[in-house]
């Protein structure tokens, strides 16, 4: 008996080892290295000659917390997460309900169409959206001019740049969450709706008392993944605005990238990465806690 268990464990390990090895080499090791790096002043000098590397303790973290640029980036990132996250979840839920509705014709077509932006290269998307946002020739401003709104310099105006980025990001990403919501919706037994209809529940009450509660786990998953993804926003501002105008779209990851790969302050950039990690962890814990407190 024990012998069989042992051989089972062995074969389990044999199957796991390749994956674990890959994860160790490409995932845990770099994380550990980055963590150690965050206590050094690894920079261009150290890259040339390791004798010029110093252990600086927590000084990177302290410097980070004192840097106004970091707080700007943090504020922008929160703006993006708090406005963009819920917006994205709500829109994907709405799209999922529409696509999943029995009255919708060609659901397969719409599912594909809504999912298309997710698999499109962001750079290609950004080129198109830059045209849409063009203050003079852009479609968006043309539409606004028809209802008498003055043109908006979407990407050049410090107050409009972030909403513009959020709009694009939500459009780009909602398809993924929509697919997950559709899967969740299709797991809800039809009998429940039937029973509710017999009890005289209208569309809203069916949604409120059957769809939403039964979507709970899906909702949690979507909300968590969206939050984690949105905290790491990088590509959208990187290709659309490079963090401008006046640093109003500078996100934490973009700041990290600039510090790390533009100025090669690897130590400082690693510190920023771990601060972001702690933030995401805290956000995740908070969501899980809130969800648990809710009566199921």
């Amino acid at each position, binding site marked *: 008996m024990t012998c069989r268990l042992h051989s089972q464990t062995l074969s389990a390990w044999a199957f796991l080892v390749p994956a674990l090895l890959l994860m160790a080499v490409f995932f845990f090791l770099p994380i550990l290295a980055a963590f150690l790096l965050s206590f050094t002043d690894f920079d261009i000098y150290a*890259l040339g000659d390791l004798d010029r590397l110093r252990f600086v303790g927590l000084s990177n973290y302290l410097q980070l917390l004192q840097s106004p640029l970091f707080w700007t980036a943090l504020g922008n990132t929160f703006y993006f997460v708090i406005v963009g996250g819920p917006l994205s979840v709500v829109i994907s839920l709405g799209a999922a309900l529409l696509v999943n509705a029995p009255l919708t014709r060609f659901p397969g077509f719409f599912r594909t169409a809504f999912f298309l932006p997710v698999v499109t290269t962001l750079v290609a998307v950004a080129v198109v959206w830059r045209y849409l946002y063009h203050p003079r020739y852009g479609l968006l401003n043309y539409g606004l001019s028809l209802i008498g709104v003055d043109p908006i310099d979407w990407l050049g105006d410090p107050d409009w740049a972030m909403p513009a980025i959020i709009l694009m990001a939500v459009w780009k990403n909602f398809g993924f969450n929509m697919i997950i919501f559709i899967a969740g919706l299709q797991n809800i037994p039809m009998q429940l709706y039937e029973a509710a209809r017999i009890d005289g529940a209208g569309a809203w009450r069916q949604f409120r008392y059957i769809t939403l509660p039964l979507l709970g786990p899906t909702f949690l998953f979507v909300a968590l993944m969206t939050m984690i993804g949105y905290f790491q926003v990088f590509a959208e501002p990187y290709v659309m605005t490079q963090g401008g105008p006046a640093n109003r779209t500078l996100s934490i990851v973009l700041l990290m990238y600039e510090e790390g790969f533009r100025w090669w302050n690897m130590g400082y950039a690693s510190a920023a990465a771990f601060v972001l990690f702690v933030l995401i962890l805290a956000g995740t814990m908070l969501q899980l806690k809130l969800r648990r407190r809710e009566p199921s």
Partner: protein
Amino acid sequence: MDFKVFTQNRADYRYTMHMFPMLRLFLSSILLILWLTGCDSAIDRPVVVEFWAMGQEGEQVKALLPEFERRYPDIRVQVQQIPWSAAHEKLLTAYAGDAMPDLFQLGNTWIPEFVALRAIEPLDERLKTWPSAAVSDYFTGILATNQLGNQTWALPWYVDTRLFFYRTDLLAAAGFSGPPATWDGWLQIMSRIKTLDGAQRYAILLPVNEWQLPVILALQRGAALLRDRNQYGNFQHPHFREAFLFYLSLFKEGLAPPVSNSQMINLYQEFANGTFAVYVSGPWNIGEFERRLPAAVKGKWMTAALPGRVVPSTRSSLPSQGRRDSANPVPPSLGGGDWGTGDDDLAAGVSLAGGASLAISRTSPRQDAAWKLLEYLAQPEQQAQFYRLTGDLPARQAAWNDSALTSNRYTEAFRQQLQHVQATPPIPEWERIANRIAYYTELAVRQEMQADEALVALDRDVDRILEKRRWLLEQGLAP
């Protein structure tokens, strides 16, 4: 190995279909490896020089290479084209990953950084084979940016500096026949242009997120940007402060609009409309202006070397004297003291020594071949040819006698300007410092910060950036 058996057996047909390609792949890869390793010792294979060049240069330089390969049949060149926006990161990553090309292009302000990295091979030994006239043929100020600690690390490929692009018709409308040689003269022109009728008008466009003009003005004022062997910021020094205030006054007086690069949607259209009459820019805009300006303003613009603080002895190009004092006196806030009327001859009309250079990787095993390519690209004929291809101004003065350059009326001002160029501090941290200068200048222009506050903050930031450098100097680990 009896895989032949499989082919003879119909039942195993499907099996062979899978097996055969795999076996073939396996065997042929072994053959390939044998062939590659075996051929390494062969003498007759040409040396392949890997050459990284950026943007348009990377594209156009290919046209010069067939002739090079004809002259050196034992050398082949492989050009890798890298977009400018990613070039700096790509070179650093290549260095970190030990994948440097043999020869590469780099912005000349990056040289101190790559010297600190010990990524480039000094060229002094090889330059000894050159006649001294060839070395002194380079613009002195430009060559200086390639020299550091008594060594020459790279050779200029093409040059770049900033000067005035201006509308000749607007200058004439304001009553001036030609560009003056002093700021004093330009201020009079600009305040007059501002009052010309027409649409909302400014005199000069200075994108607020650029550090170049404040730095140029400071260099003209004779400011040392950093102090104590480039260990501390020196931005609160009266010289820099004076230049900074002068720069800010251009916005306060409404001569320059407080807009950033990205806010100026169509620079060429606005220049054609006369929204501004003067623009500070570099040689790349000669081609752009020629291509993009509408026909109506063709021939109505010109380039001029930057004005200096001192009136030179030749006053031939000065504005008509009658206009100078009476109608439009310079507003008192402009000039900030003795600006433009200084009696010392500090750095008259100086501008920045920009451009791109070519350097050889320290770890390259093909340095001799790379040097041959570098020498070839440095020849005046190739430099002139490269100008024809790209519009990049040659670093060798001999190349400027080529008809392609002499027939372009916009290049002469650059030739003058290039005699008066100065380098930014030759330290790896400069790009970051310049970035901070641009940041605080923008805050001060947008009046989100007082000028002096901004300078204090700038010094504080720069001192922090230079902390590592101070430590290295202290330790004797020469940066």
